[in-house]
């Protein structure tokens, strides 16, 4: 996002709308005496468009220029109004467990593991995303990256988790690494994430997905409890109402 210096009156009304915090600096106009305008720190801005959508600017100074590659990835991952065409899904990730009832993305014995860097309100550079992705892949735990995920698309080597060099300096409001592994490898995957968390200058959320069997306990619960992991009381729950339903078990 940018503020047109010929229009901006430095009223500060846009400041609190920025999810990245205070990223604006005052500048003195070089041609209009006494005129002060704000400049948006282009490195800190993720082009999420929130300040523009808020329609808060009294002089319409805020605008989103058409950004060239690689900067355009900021808007693709940060602005909820923009769809990443590679995933064919609105948003920053994939359909993941939302459509597990019809696609069978996560089978019994498998666990989906997602790592979303930067949210809420901190942001993440792709170099941070690469650090986590490479740590996961280096551990060789059978973690399979979700092919249609935007971050996977930006990888130059999907076996190592290495991202394209030209996107490493770009920043997003959040970026998600998505994939799955066997349930028995989950403790090792979590350990890798715990270790890599100490090396980052941002935050990340971790989520795990499992198919719930018709009877018996949720397979992931005893694993998490044995590891002493905190997990949320609230969850995302697929109702199993999609059609046609995926056949998970022989008796179905």
């Amino acid at each position, binding site marked *: 996002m940018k503020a047109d210096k010929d229009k901006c009156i430095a009223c500060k009304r846009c400041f609190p709308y920025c999810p990245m915090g205070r990223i604006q600096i005052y500048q003195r106009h070089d041609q209009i005496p006494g005129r002060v305008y704000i400049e948006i720190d282009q490195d800190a801005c993720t082009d999420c468009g929130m300040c523009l959508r808020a329609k808060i600017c009294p002089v319409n100074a805020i605008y989103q220029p058409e950004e060239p590659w690689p900067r355009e990835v900021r808007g693709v991952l940060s602005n909820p109004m923009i769809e990443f065409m590679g995933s064919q899904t*609105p948003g920053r990730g994939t359909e993941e467990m939302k459509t597990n009832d019809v696609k069978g993305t996560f089978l019994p014995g498998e666990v989906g593991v997602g790592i979303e860097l930067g949210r809420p309100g*901190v942001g993440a550079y792709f170099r941070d995303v690469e650090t986590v992705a490479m740590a996961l892949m280096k551990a060789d735990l059978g973690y399979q990256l979700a092919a249609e995920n935007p971050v996977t698309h930006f990888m130059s080597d999907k076996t190592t988790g290495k991202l394209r060099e030209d996107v490493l300096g770009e920043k997003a409001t959040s970026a998600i690494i998505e994939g799955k592994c066997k349930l028995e490898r989950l403790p090792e995957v979590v350990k890798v994430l715990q270790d890599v968390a100490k090396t980052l200058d941002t935050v990340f959320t971790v*989520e795990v997905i499992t198919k*719930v069997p018709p009877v018996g306990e949720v397979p992931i619960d005893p694993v998490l409890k044995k590891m002493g992991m905190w997990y949320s009381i609230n969850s*995302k729950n697929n*109702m*199993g109402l999609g059609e046609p339903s995926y056949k998970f078990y022989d008796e179905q």
Partner: protein
Amino acid sequence: MTHSLHRRGTRESLSNDFIVLGCPATGVNKKGSAPKTRKFLSICYKHGPINLGDMKTGNIYNTTMDDILSRVTDGTIVECTFDNREKIVSLLKELKEDRPGISIVISGVTDVVQQCMTEAGLGRIHSLEYSLGTWGKTERLPDFEILQTVTMCGHAMIASDLVRKMVRDVKRGRRTIEDCCIEMAECCSCGNYNVTRGIQLFKELLPIYTVHSLY
């Protein structure tokens, strides 16, 4: 992946906070899904959501229900937020009898969602996703009281500074709490922001927060 998953709050606060999502599946039922998605939205609307929207169009606080319905295309993911478990039970009863055909996901407290499903005559949860929390430089996060509000927007479009500014505005008598919460709902274009819960959280925030100057 995590749109409505990482909401923070107490059990009491989260127990009347449900996000119902309708999602067609690429490669399975996405083609020709627009009428099914509209049907799903219309059913949800009958049961009185507090918010409803589609991330690419907006929600009922910044556009109209007719606009949201008319802009549904094959592949559109829609979300409806409810502030009451009885509404979820009645909604599930209708969805059980009159399935739209697309996948339906409910975010909420796991055992409460399962109870609602059981009361509606549905079986067990099909698949679930847990949050294992926020890791890394967590000292960069806002306070928990503000985090409860900002995590209601899955895309993190509600800025913590905006919440602080609104606290100041309300304390100075410039705006009402309701007005502030409606504006936060407008920021969260998908319709995930629960206005009822937002108002409650804001009331709890006011006595413990004083903001003299932000900038």
